[in-house]
Structures are given as C-alpha cells and as structure tokens.
C-alpha cells in the first residue's frame, strides 16, 4: 500500500513539473519565436490629431492716412487689437480664425504715394515702399473726400497684399474713435475674406476630413473642380489633328509656354512643382459625331454629349510614364475639313463664346476652327499657323480654375486691380496657400490616423523602422505646420504641410505593409493544433486529476476531524 502511495506522489510531481516547464519555458519560447517586429509609433500624438483644432491667424495692418483721424484721436488709437472667430465644423474638427490688427498712421512717404492720381499708381508706389511677408495684409484708410477712387468704388484691392479703403460718407467728421473703428471693422473683415481666406474656402479645403452637409453642394462642386493638393503637377498640351491630309498644323508651343504659362507657374512655385510637355496626336477623333446645324451652318456639339467626347482621345493621350503626379490635360482640337466649323453649345443652345470647355480635375478642351483661313481652291494639305495668344488665353483661364486660383466675385463697391504680367496677384497666391495648407493638414491627419488605426487592427503586421521613421516625421511636420499656421507664417506652414503629406503617403503606401507576410489567425492555428492538442490534453487532464485528488483528500481529512 505504501509503495503505491509513493508512486502516486511521484506521478503527480512529474505531471506538475512538466506543466511548469511547458508554462515557464515553452510558452515564452513560442511567443518569442513567432513574434512580429513592430517598431514604436507615436500613437498618443497621432490620437491627438483625431480631434483637429486649427488656428489660422492673419496679420493686418491698418494705416490711417491724413484726414481720417483727428490728431487727438491719433493718440488714442489702440496699438493692436485681436479678434477671434470660432467655428465648429463637426465634432472632431474646430476652426478658429484670429485677426491681429495693428493700427498706425501713414508715414510721409506713404502720404505722398496716396496722392497719386489713380489707384493703380498709388498701389504701385506703395509697393515700392515696403514689402509685406506672405500671408499678411495692409489696408490703407483714405478719407471720403479723396479723389483716388471713383464715385462708386469703396475698396481697391491691389496687385500685391495691399488694399485701399475709403471711409463712408457718414464718417465725415466729428465721430468718436470707437465709432470709427466699429465702422471699419466689418469692411476690413470683408477685405480679409476677399484677400486671404473665407470660411467657405477653408471648409471646402477640409473636405478630406469632414463630410459636408448636403446643403453645401454648391461649395463641394466648386472645390471639386480644382485638383487635389499634390506636390507636383504635370501639364500636357496636346494638339489633336484628326485630318493630317488636309491640315498641316504648326503651333509654336515652345514660345507660347515660355510667354504665357511659365510666368504663372513661376509664381505658383511655392505651391507645387510643375512640369510641362506637349505633343501632337494625329487621327485623334472625338467620341461623338457632331451634328450639322442648318441655322448656324456649322457643326455643333451639345453640352450633354461633351462627357463622351474625350474617352477615345484619352486612350491615346498616354499617362506620364515618368512620374505619378496628377496630369492636367489641355487639348486643342482642330476639326477635320469635313466637319468644320465646329461649335460647342451650352445648355441653352447658345454657342459658347470661347468654344472651349473643361472637365473638373481632368483638363480642358478647346475647339479651334480653321476652315475660314483657306478657300475651297486651296491645295491640300494646307499649312496653318495656330494663333497661340488666342489658345493660351483659354488654356490659362482653365488652368487657373483647375488649380483652384479662383477668386470669388468681389462684393459691390470693390475693385480688383488688373493682374500683372504673371497673371496672378500676390494675394491670390496667398489665398491659394491658405487653403492648400489647410487641405494638406487635413489630408495628412486623415492618412496618418487611418494608418495608425489599420496597424492597430491587424496585430501581426510587421512595422519596419523606416515606416516608423516616416510616421514620426509626418507627425512632427504636422505639428510644425499647425504651429506655423497659428503663428501666421504662411510660407513655412505650407512647406511643413507638404512635407507632412509626403511622409504620411510614403508610410501609408509602403509595399511592406501590403505584403502578405503574415497569415490569418485561423490558418496559423490549423498548423498549431496537431502539435498542441496531443501535448496539452494529457497535461490538462492530469492537472485536473491532481486537483480533484487534492480536493477529495481535504474532504476526507475534514470527515476524519468530524
């Protein structure tokens, strides 16, 4: 009897020690060897971006010229004034605009400049005096009696970052300073919305982050027209010649690009890199057969059919093999001799004056009729020189629309200076930079948060060091961009936001995250079961037996005691 008891004891000990070895050595060993490498990510900082609070601040300088404030009022003019405006876009995104308004009186030289006969001259000479940093504004307040602006004009917006504001008639004399400032405030706000950003622009830029209410359709359509923010764009001009047998077309695209497009793109250089190329495509047909209109004695294309025009052409345009930036296509279509002239009709069946149309986020097409430059007796093929000034005028207008350089129409009483040879005023560039920075920040935050979510969900995906590096650099750039927006340094904000977007996209589209380097859990367990089941069942059974034995023994002892 005693020997069996010893045997039993030994068996129990052996089972316990095997179980201990399995738990202490086996499980950690298995855990270590099947572990995936996951580099550290700044998860807490990424989580902060889930709720985005953007503060945009603009520096505005208000300069009072002689005759607008009395000398005693001059002394009482506050140095600075900060106005905040808060908007809640949705539960996770909040916007705050801060206008830092500084007041001062005009210097003698500025007074001289404001005495010029016309507003544009005054504007020019004011620029010569000072240079304003990117994103800031100067508003010159002139007395009501000034002859600088014509009768019905209140505000003149210059080519650079200045505006000239005329006091209203009710502000003639003897008003207190408070009244004057209160009178000025809404008008300065209006100028700001025109020259730097308006709330609708910024919410449109946030479209990547925020689902807009259906009521805002108008804005969505406006924002959908322009290309998404991207570090670079490819601009392709294509000359479509469906009839090389009758027309031999020559376009001097090289010099046209040099004269018309390049100045605008040089100005836009802080926004993105642009590369331009051009090509000539022969036998490129439109997808729709134009209909002959007897009343107009010309062929016509309806607005409804325009959507089908491009498809066959697009197959031949070819994507850019050498880069992955979005492509802006500008097509110049010269209809063949049998289908000329060709006119585009709008919804009201009116011929479109420019004979051109554009497609959002794709490009533009212009139809260029050449039938009237040669007579019926001409020897085919006819050599035709294309008037590039006419063509480029249309293409530039389309380019501005597609890049999002589209100013909302000025409110009544505003006059906008004609833009200089670059085709883009400084404040227009600022406007674009504001919305592009906000758009970049919005896109980068969504990318980085969704990447963090994905990595969190799939537990056995490998996170390499380079991805962690990209993510952290994206997070740092994002924080810097937000901080620069708060400080009002627009140029730096755009720069950092571009870096953020690049780093976040690189991390998100890294091929190592897409690789099937890992198996789903169910397949893994299918492989483990043949090993684990026969090993674990005896251990578990003997552990259960030991436990029940021990309980029985205790119960017997209890019975004995009783």
């Amino acid at each position, binding site marked *: 009897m005693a020997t069996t008891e010893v045997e039993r004891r030994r068996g129990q000990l052996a089972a316990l020690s095997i179980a201990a070895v399995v738990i202490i050595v086996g499980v950690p060993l298995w855990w270590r060897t099947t572990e995936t490498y996951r580099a550290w990510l700044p998860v807490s900082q990424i989580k902060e971006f889930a709720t985005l609070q953007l503060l945009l601040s603009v520096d505005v300088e208000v300069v009072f010229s002689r005759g607008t404030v009395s000398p005693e009022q001059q002394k009482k003019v506050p140095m600075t004034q900060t106005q905040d405006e808060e908007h809640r876009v949705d539960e996770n995104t909040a916007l705050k605009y801060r206008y830092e308004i500084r007041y001062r009186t005009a210097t003698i030289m500025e007074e001289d400049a404001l005495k010029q006969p016309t507003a544009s001259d005054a504007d020019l000479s004011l620029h010569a005096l000072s240079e304003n940093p990117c994103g800031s504004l100067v508003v010159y307040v002139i007395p009501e009696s000034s002859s600088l602006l014509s009768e019905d004009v209140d505000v003149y917006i210059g080519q650079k970052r200045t505006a000239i504001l005329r006091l209203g008639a009710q502000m003639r004399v003897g008003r207190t300073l408070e009244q004057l400032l209160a009178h000025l405030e809404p008008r300065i706000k209006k100028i700001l919305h025109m020259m730097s950003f308006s709330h609708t622009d910024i919410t449109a830029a946030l479209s990547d982050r925020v689902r807009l209410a259906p009521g805002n359709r108008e804005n969505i359509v406006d924002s959908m027209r322009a290309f998404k923010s991207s570090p670079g764009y490819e601009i392709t001009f294509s000359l479509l010649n469906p009839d090389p047998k009758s027309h031999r077309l020559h376009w001097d695209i090289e010099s046209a690009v040099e004269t018309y497009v390049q100045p605008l793109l040089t100005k836009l250089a802080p926004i993105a890199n642009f590369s331009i190329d051009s090509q000539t495509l022969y036998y490129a047909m439109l997808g729709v057969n134009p209909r002959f209109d007897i009343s107009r004695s010309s062929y016509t294309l309806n607005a409804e059919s325009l959507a089908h025009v491009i498809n066959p052409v697009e197959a031949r345009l070819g994507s850019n093999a050498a880069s992955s930036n979005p492509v802006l296509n500008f097509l110049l279509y010269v209809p063949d001799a049998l289908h000329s002239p060709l006119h585009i009709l709008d919804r009201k069946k009116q011929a479109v*004056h420019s004979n051109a*149309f554009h497609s959002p986020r794709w490009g533009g097409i212009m139809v260029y009729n050449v039938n009237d430059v040669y007579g019926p007796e001409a020897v085919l093929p006819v050599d035709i020189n294309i008037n590039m000034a*006419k063509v480029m005028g249309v293409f530039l207008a389309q380019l501005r629309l597609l890049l999002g350089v589209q100013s909302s129409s000025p409110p009544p009483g505003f006059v906008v200076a004609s833009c200089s040879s670059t085709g883009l005023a400084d404040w227009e560039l600022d406007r674009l930079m504001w919305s592009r920075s906000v758009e970049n920040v919005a896109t980068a935050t969504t990318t980085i948060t969704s990447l963090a979510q994905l990595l969190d969900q799939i537990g056995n995906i490998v996170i390499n060091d380079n991805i962690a590096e990209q993510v952290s650099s994206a997070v740092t750039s994002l924080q810097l961009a937000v901080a620069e927006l708060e400080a009002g340094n627009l140029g730096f904000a755009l720069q950092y936001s571009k870096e953020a977007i690049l780093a976040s996209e690189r991390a998100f589209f890294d091929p190592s995250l897409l690789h099937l380097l890992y198996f789903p859990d169910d397949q893994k367990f299918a492989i483990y079961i043949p090993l684990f089941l026969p090993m674990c069942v005896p251990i578990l059974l003997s552990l259960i037996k030991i436990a029940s034995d021990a309980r029985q023994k205790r119960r017997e002892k209890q019975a004995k005691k009783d």
Partner: protein
Amino acid sequence: MAAHRCGFLPPLFILCALSVLTVTWTQETIPLGSHRAAAADSKPTDTKSVAQTTEQLAVEQRQWEATEVEEATSAAAAVSKQDNSSPEDVVQTSTPKPKDEFQEELVVRPLHSGDIYASFQFRTLWQTDFTRERKVSHYGLFPKSLGQVISKFSVRELHISFTQGYWRTMQWGQPFLSSPPGAELWVWFQDTVTDVDGTWKELANVLSGIFCASLNFIDSTNTVQPTASFKPLGIGNVTDHRFLRYATLPREIVCTENLTPWKKLLPCGTKAGLAVLLKSEKLFHSSFYSQAVHIRPVCQDWQCKTASWELRQTLNVVFDLHNSGQGKREWSLFKMFSRTLTEACPLASTSKIYIDVTDNPEGEQFELSPATALLSQAVVLGDRRTFSVYDLTQQITFGTVRSLNVLMRWKSSEGDMLRPLLHAERYVAGYGLQTGEIHTLMYNNHPYRSFPVLLLDSVPWYLRMYIHTLTVTSKGKDNKPSYIHYQPSKDRVRPHLLEMLVQLPPNSVTEVTVEFERALLKWTEYTPDPNHGFYVGSSVISSLVPSLVALDTNSTWQRPLFSTFFPCKEESSYFVRVYTEPLLVNLPTPDFSMPYNVICLTCTVVAVGYGSLYNLLTRTFQIEEPSPGLAKRLANIIRRMRGVPPL
C-alpha cells in the same frame, strides 16, 4: 468684374480681346475704315449667361463646363502685346523645315520553305538636342511616353523586343533583325547615371507598364553586363560596360496586349499607311511573330555635327500560307493581313513596299501583280538582293481601284536556298535531376574562311555551372577561345555570365559544353507551374561574317531601312547576331502540399513520443495478481455449478 480689370490695360491687346467692355471700347477708338472689320470680329456674348450656365452645370457630379475666358484674357493680352501685329491664322507660303521625320517600309520575302516573311519597319527621327537638361519637352511625331522615359532615366540607347516563336535559321535563312523568343531588353545609360542598377530596375518597371509586358520580373537575378557582345549601335564612343544592362525573359508570352501599345507609338496609329495591315488576329496566327523598339542617337546629316534620336519600330512575321492555302501556292496582302492598302501615312516622308524577287529574275518562278517597273538592289546580310518596289506616296501605285493588293502566284516551287553561313543550336544533355550538361553547337558553313564569333551565355543561378568542365571543340580538336570572361553566379543575387571569343574554322561545327548541377530552390521560389520546367535564355552569338559581295559602307542615307540597322565599317564582312533556342530545364520539384504534411507528421511523431514519455513519468504502477489460466477458470465454472467452492 473681369471686364473692369481689363479696362486698365494698354490699348494694344485689342486683337485678342474677348470681353464685352473691351470690344465696345475698341469700337469707339478705331478709325472708321477698320471699324467694320472690328465689329464683324466681335460677337458680344452675355458673359453673365455663360456664368449662369456654368453654375447650372456645376450641380452635376462630373460636369463639363463652358470655359469663361475673360478672367485670364487680361494676363494673356498683356503679354501678347509683342506679337499682336501678326494676323490671326496664316496660311504659310513656305513650308518650314520639318523637325521630325517619319518613314515606313514593308519588306516581303518568299521563303524557300513555302512560308512568307513580312518585315515592317517604321522609323521616326526626332531632331532635338537631348544632352541639354530641359524641363519642358515638346513632342511632334516622336511618342511622348518614350521620350519621357529617355529623358527621365538618361537612356542613351534602348532596345526591346518581344517574340513569339523561334526563328528557324536553317529553313528560313537569316532575318533582317533577329530576336530571341520571349522578351529581350538591353539598355545603354548615359555616363551621368550614378545608380545604374536602381535606374535599370525602375526603367524595366516603367517599360512593363508601357508595353503591358511582365518586364517587371527583370531584377538582378536575370540581368548581366556583357563586356563585349552588345556594343552601342548609335553614335557615341562610350563603351564602358558599367552603363550597359542586358536581360531576357524567355518565358514571356507575346500577344495582342503587347501589340496595341506598340501600334500606339506610331504617329498615324493604325488609321493610315502600312500600319493598317497590322491586324492582331492575323499577325498572331503565324509561325513566328516578333515586334521590337530600338531607340538610339544617330547622325542628323553627312557631317554628323548634330545628333538626333532615332526610333525604329520593327515587326517581323512569318506566315505559313502553304499549309492554309489548300496546296495552292499564292499569296496576297489581303490573304496575309485581310486588309489592302489605300494610302500612305500622310506624315511619312517615304512609304514603300519591297518585294524580294531575287530568285525570280525572269518571272519563271512566280508572277507578281500589279507589276511595278521600279526595281531596287540592296546588299542585305552579305547578299545582293533585288526588290520590286511599290512607292505608296505616288498616287499611281494604287491604280484605278484606289487600293493596292500585291499578289504573288507561283509557277514552280524549285530553287534552293543559300545556306546561312552562321547558325547555332543548343540543348541540354544528361539524365536525372542532379547534374546535366549544356551543349551549344555553332556551325560555320563558309567553304573556305574562318571567322571569330562572340558567344554570350547567361545562365540562372539555380543551374550551378562547373566552369572547369568547359570544353570547346571543333572538328574533334580542342579549340581554345582567345578571350573568356566569366562571372560566377551568386545564389539569389546574380546569374552566371560567360562570354568568349571563338574562332570558327571553315565548314565546321564547334561544340561548347559545360556541366552544371541543379540547385534546390526554396518552396516559395518555384513558379506556379514548376513541373513545366525552368527557362534558360538563348545564347547570343554575335559575329562579323565574311560577305559574299562587297558592301557599300559610306552611303546609308538612301538605302532601304531594313539594310541600315547595324552600322558597317568594313566592306568585306557584315554583322550578324544569332540567337539559339532557349532551354527548358527541369529542377527537382517537391510536392507542394509537403509543408503541411511535414508539419502534421512531425507533430504526430512528437505527440506520440511525448505521450508515451508522459505516461511513463506520471502513471502509478502496481503489481496485479496474474489472472488464472484458462483450465483453472473452466474448472472453477464447473465447480461453481456443482456448488463446490472454487480453487
């Protein structure tokens, strides 16, 4: 609003003015004489209505909008001050010198086997200064996609070919341009490229997209840098082979999806000219099909002061008309391509069809209709050939029916072919799955002259070549190569490269043998159909073969395209490149359900061993009384029945 802006501009931009305000202003100021013209020119439109329609359209998701021009006109107009003196469109009186040039050509050669060999060549010349770094690039006839590739990857020369089928040299003679089965790509980079391998990989990926081919499978394991075999064919004397990369994909299957992007590169597409004949269902119903793109810099003129890019697109196809023609030997363009020709590509400077009539000097072999008086002689591949020429740029070629359908009807089927002077073949010998031997046979059929050939062999790493077993024998004697370049492979990194210069004695067969061992791959490295075998690319044999007739070395300008591809410097020999068959080698192939079986089996073994050990360790043992024997048990049963106590 835009009108306001324009109003301030100088008065010179009136000609391109498009806005209402500007037009009215023009009418006021222009003197009476020109008033009418200006008024006729201006069609005042309601800018507001355009704007409104724009808004209406804007409601749709993907909308097509009429463009308002007024916005930017001011900018455009401001700049257009300088050139507004020129009238709108000018019908030019003098044609400017074209910057680009396009030529097309089709050669048809009846083969002695009864097949028909048709070879298309399209040549685009692009006169541009490509060494200059430019951001803006403008393309005319040259395809933009390839131009961008050249400038982005700093390519100096690019040769790519896709071939379906194997060219049977012994039956068909020498092709104008040979290519190995599958895909072949070789590229010379500019010497400004620093990371050649990275650029090469990226270039292969981009080309893979352009040509819809699996060129993205080109990586370091199938890329070699030949030292002598592939010299640049264009101008330039950089021969540092660090900038050369060569790769073949013998497995590549070529079909219509490769032809369509190739056709897109032609300026006329398939709408006009010879390319009309390129119908894929006919082209791929053939014994041999090969398409290629060659880009290289060439001289612009005699003096060769400036260079221009040459893009040569070639397409070679061999039709087996003899079998499909129910015994009748006749062919026509319509029979081959199911199309006829009606016009030349209007952009082409020359557009010709050449038909090889060398064997038919008096018309006793076959009859050609419509007959053409134009005959041309050219020296191709060391042989003087005579061709009937149809010039498509001449309207008279098409005759009264306005379509050209060249027809050839055979009278007799005699005649023998000149045996090609150089010819090669290759096979794998040996048995079992461990070792083997590659045999390469090179034939010199020249009766009395020996010539040297360059042999290039690129063998994947999983065939481990034993280079010490390399033997070269001709006519039973050891033939020592005068130059051997051998680069051993590295597992999973790079292939073997063997290059050697061998002198082939006259009228002989030279045999090169080398032994190899088959490596065992990792189970993820096998192709989806591993039992099909693994391809080893063709050997390349390049040689200057003695010519039978003297070559004309100086004037390459007026000669037909097919005879001008390889630059020739000597009169007495011509350059030939011969490809052998690709090899198909079986590697030891495991059963691919094996990993799971192995896991299950080992787990079971482990579990059984562990189970018995566990049992031994944890069971308690006690001595049991041995059970009584059978006799005793029976006795006990009987005793119980009798009522007697058991034993």
